[in-house]
């Protein structure tokens, strides 16, 4: 090629064309970096600075720092009662890494790994610190020797960050990541149970707000990568002393947090002491594991300790249910928008990826923000749901009816739930129509008060139409059946709730017929029927009628 210009010439021209960068400070920096690069003198200085021991192996060297053990008793048998906990006999290994970046990609280095485990009632801790890039295989080998095959890792956000990063490091080194039996990430647990009273979900906030600890002169997380990278370039280990201390505290806090949870929540007997909101969150965690009985017990305990709780949250429910809630709920269905420490982020318990929460009316009304306070009505809602899941439909109905008395958006939704229960579980179509009408009334009241629930109203319209069709079908069949049965015997309908069947059918047809063109008669029917079932809504209905009139 005539003009095959060598790389060297192009590179020379390229450098010449740059604005004078290659002179001055950077050059000097590079030279200093050269001197400092990973000589054993550098590693020894590092070990001395952080008060550790330089361990040399055939695969490189690492600095091992051991802190004195601390007394931190934990009752593993009791702890195992909680949802998502490791079996009582599995060894636990608390683990926390410090890294050169936030991506779990190939070029991010875990330069400091802090480990902690129980020896009897004492909590032992060591840290492994990397003196140079080239020494990484030595550190990884040492780390693997500390991870028992039957052990569980205990981390904070370790599922999403620390562990995948370490897996990447092992793969980079051409090795398989060490096996272990399980992984307990405390972040989702903290989210579930404590976020209603925390400013955010970072470990530092856990320490300050749950454990009542304050760190002094702690290094900020964003400073850590540059402190290590500066050490690599300039060989100055001094600024890493704070980083090592920071990591040591992080690992100890993992242990402390586990103890805190064990003491305060693992035994149902201690629930009476716990804040109601914590218990409500814990109930959700139980419910997610399908342990609905425990969830119900938790909620009952929470509702029993209600007085203090409602004193803390004196916020009026209607303030929390501003119309823009619906919009927030839609945003809520995109959990990835929030940074990991945000209380609003969805908890990730691992396992199969779930579907994103749908921004429906419920999430708009009761938890449009994941860190929303646990008001009494929110807990009652939760309780009613669990009763339904337990198959205690009558109790669930009663719980929803009690909530329906509260009016507002929650009351409206509670009546919808009553309608669903009666239609699908209790086989009470008349009651379902009546409940749906009650919901519609409350929704209209909300609209009157300037807090419309348009999607809900639309859904209610559809529900009433569908119910109407079912009633008509049922009437047709029951008419036929009555003709047959009059000669055979008395039928037993599954759980008729209010009146005898023919009367109910009549009511149903009236209610449905009238609901479409004009609502006035249907309200009358609903009110009359409601009076029979639950006294609570009647007052509200009367007042509502007053407003409407």
């Amino acid at each position, binding site marked *: 090629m005539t*003009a095959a210009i060598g*790389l060297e010439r192009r590179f020379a*021209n390229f450098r010449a064309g740059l604005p004078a960068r290659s002179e001055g400070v950077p050059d000097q920096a590079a030279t200093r*970096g*050269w001197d400092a690069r990973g000589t054993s003198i550098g590693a020894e200085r590092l070990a001395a600075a952080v008060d550790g021991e330089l361990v040399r192996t055939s695969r490189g060297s690492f600095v091992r720092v051991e802190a004195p053990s601390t007394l931190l008793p934990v009752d593993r048998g009791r702890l195992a009662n909680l949802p998502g906990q490791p079996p009582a006999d599995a060894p636990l290994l608390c683990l926390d890494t410090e890294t050169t*970046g936030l991506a779990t990609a*190939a*070029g991010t280095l875990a330069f400091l790994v802090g480990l902690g485990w129980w020896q009897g009632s004492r909590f032992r801790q060591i840290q492994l610190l990397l003196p140079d*890039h080239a020494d990484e295989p030595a550190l990884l080998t040492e780390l693997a020797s500390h991870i028992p095959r039957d052990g569980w890792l205990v981390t904070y956000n370790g599922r999403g960050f620390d562990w995948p990063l370490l897996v990447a490091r092992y793969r980079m080194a051409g090795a398989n990541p060490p096996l272990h039996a399980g992984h307990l990430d405390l972040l989702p647990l903290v989210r579930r149970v404590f976020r209603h009273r925390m400013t955010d979900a970072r470990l530092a906030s856990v320490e300050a707000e749950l454990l009542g600890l304050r760190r002094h002169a702690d290094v900020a997380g964003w400073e850590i990568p540059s402190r290590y*990278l500066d050490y690599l370039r300039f060989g100055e280990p001094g600024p890493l002393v704070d980083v090592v201390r920071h990591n040591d505290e992080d690992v100890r806090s993992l242990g402390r947090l586990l103890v805190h949870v064990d003491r305060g929540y693992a035994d149902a007997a201690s629930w009476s002491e716990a804040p109601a909101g914590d218990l409500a969150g814990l109930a959700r965690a139980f419910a997610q594991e399908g342990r609905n009985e425990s969830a119900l017990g938790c909620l009952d305990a929470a509702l029993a300790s209600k007085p203090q709780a409602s004193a803390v949250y004196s916020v009026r429910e209607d303030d929390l249910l501003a119309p823009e809630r619906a919009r927030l709920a839609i945003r809520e269905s995109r959990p990835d928008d929030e940074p990991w420490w945000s209380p609003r982020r969805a908890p990730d318990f691992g396992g199969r990826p779930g579907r994103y929460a749908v921004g429906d009316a419920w999430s708009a009304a009761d938890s449009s923000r994941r860190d929303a306070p646990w008001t009494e009505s929110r807990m009652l809602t939760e309780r009613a749901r669990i009763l339904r899941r337990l198959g205690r439909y009558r109790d669930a109905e009663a719980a929803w009816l009690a909530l329906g008395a509260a009016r507002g958006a929650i009351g409206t939704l509670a009546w919808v739930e009553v309608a669903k229960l009666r239609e699908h579980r209790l086989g009470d179509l008349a009651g379902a129509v009546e409940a749906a009408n009650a919901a519609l009334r409350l929704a209209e009241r909300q609209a009157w008060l300037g807090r419309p629930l348009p999607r809900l109203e639309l859904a209610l319209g559809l529900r009433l139409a569908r119910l109407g069709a079912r009633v008509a079908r049922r009437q047709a069949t029951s008419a036929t059946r009555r003709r047959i049965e009059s000669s055979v015997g008395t039928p037993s309908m599954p759980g008729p709730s209010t009146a005898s069947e023919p009367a109910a059918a009549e009511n149903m047809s009236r209610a449905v017929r009238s609901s479409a063109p004009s609502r006035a008669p249907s309200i009358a029917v609903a009110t009359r029927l409601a009076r029979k079932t639950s006294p609570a809504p009647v007052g509200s209905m009367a007042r509502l009628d007053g407003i409407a009139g």
Partner: protein
Amino acid sequence: MEQTFYPTFDPEEERAVRTYAPAGTETVLARLLEEPSLAAAVTHHATLPARDARTAPFPAWLDARIVRGLEDRGITSLYSHQAEAVEAVHAGEDIVVVTPTASGKTLCYALPVLQALAEDPSARALFLFPTKALGQDQVAEFAGLAKASSLQVAAATYDGDTPAPIRSAIRTAGQVVVTNPDMLHSAILPHHTKWFQLFEQVRVIVIDELHTYRGVFGSHVANVLRRLLRLCAHYGSNPIIVCSSATIGNPAELAVQLTGRTHRLIDRNGAPAGARHILLVDPPLLDPATGARGSALTHAERWALPFLRAGRQTIVFGRARVAVEIILTRLREALREHLGPRSRIRGYRGGYLPTERRAIERGLRDGEILGVVSTNALELGVDIGALDVSILAGYPGSVAGTWQQLGRAGRRQETSVGVLIASGSAVDQYVIHHPQFLLEGSPEEARIDPDNLHVLLAHLRCATFERPFEPGDVFGPGPVDELLAFIGEEGHVRQSSDGRWYWSSENFPASEVSLRTAAPENVVIIDTTPDRPRVIGETDLFSAQVLVHSQAIYLHESQQYHVDKLDWGERKAYVRKVDVDYYTYANRAVTLKPLDVFASEPVTGGRRVHGEVMVASLVTLFKKLKFGTDENVGWGPIDLPELELQTTAYWLTYDEADGPGRAAARWRKDDLDVALLGAGRAIQTVAAVLLMVDPRDLGLVTQVRSPHSEAPTIYLYEAVPGGIGLSERLFKRHEELIAGAQALIEACDCDAGCPACTGPRLDPEVNGKSLALRLLAAMRAQRGVVGSAA
């Protein structure tokens, strides 16, 4: 100047062309050619004879399940090029397949991949497509074939639209991963440890639409592939690379440059084809003084209507969305009363929803849809079956693109028709008057320069992030140590005690490198039309000056955007969607200074040079020009700082004293100025055509007396920092440029220079055309003609 954008039809004339009853393609074409006003505009009419299929039996080693799957789909043998490709891949050869649209390219790579999976389910394959839509289309086709062969194959697209929960499943279990270069660059390579199953077991890498990887993008992709192959080597795999390309002049060379490996060229097409008519149409000149021409859109409509009325499936390509909308509206209006539902004529472009697009594609395949008006969104391999007629309103910018669009018409048995209608631009005019350009072996080349230092250094950062370099390791052109030491000055990499180079920064380098621009500093283009503003593109600073200055009309995926504000300090351009009938053109005032000469040779009448230059560019005002006519409808000022660009250039100096009897014919300085500019414009046009680039990618500077050479000089510089290898090729193809420029000017019908040849006339008294021709004649080699230009 009074001018009608769309001349109305003479009713008499139109009646002669009308055919209402269904008719064959040949019949309609014959009738159209009897119509004088249409026939007069046809500059060339070629008939390509029908071609029979050349087939070969399935290879004996092909898994019986795959054979059955193919037979179920009615495929009983392979075309000869498919058989050749499949055998070569089976033998472990890298190949590049170059055959026209609809010749069954997919099977060339699908069969070896299916065979590998049938033999070993742990095998993996990686498919690279330039766009997301194409990738999704191909994965569906591949999965269909796998299913027919009753093979359990997990094939999935991994791109920006892939939901997060599915991504981890694809990483671990995806046997065939379909993605695009951008995803590979920013999501797969930096996270290779999560993809180790793929990297360990990858047997075949498929790179489709090779010719789209050219210019800056191609230079980046070449480096992304270097990174990919480096990681494959690390994980112990050595995949075969299968490339496929549209017809370009240098497919094998491009494949070598992109992948660093030699590929066997497979270009003997064995697929059958019916006879084809190719017509080149040049709308007549309306005003010889200004060079104004009839509209390509109007002509496209006039050619399309009779075919549609006769029930022939027709596709019309427009270059911009607005052109598509205009043609579509007018076709629908004209057809309403004769053809029933208007919905049988549809539009198709980038902005449509995927479901809409799928519906149109399906409609075209089953004949439900009769006509479609499209942007180049339908140019690449999306499967719409074969149609009867393809009409191109304007040259698509490359011969390869032209054939892909023309190739949309071409049934296996029946006759088909392709019509290329030129617009008034110089490039279109050059192509339309050089039919051999289209019809006899493509002279256009896809150029990349993977060793452009801006690009190379950016990817060296990414590569170090992905895996440390050993001292003396080679990445691309040579050992990396010196370059890494240079990057190390910024502190992003360091050499450790074991001598290896490690990434040592918090930054995530792949997120800082855009595959679309060469320089690290870019202007981000933000669309403010939706509620949530979104980034639609990026452009380097040098191009930003002319592309996204305030009030510019920016074209992205055939959609026009108005630049509301260019925040130069923040490097952000805020745009919003518009539909207007003009485009903007910014005047760049350029001073140029040669820095280094790489090669220099005497030529007839002067000297040709290839070297490095420093370009200082100042943009001060822009013009608004109407589509089709280029009529000036307004202007505005631009207030941006001067920019410097270090790049490579090709230049030619003219030696007035050289040659027999030349000294006698002395130039007046003013005449020489005009001649240099006119000849330069023509050379720029020809260069853009030969190297498949937009004329804006090659800057033109002329100097009557260059301070460097002390002689009249024409410079063509690359508008990309460091250049992408264009100027080196221009230096080599100098003779073709001169001959082509001369032919372009001579073929133009205008009086004394127009935008289609030497550029707009600056002074009515001066004949730019004859002056430019005089200069070019003096520089024209006397001996035989080089290249294809007559």
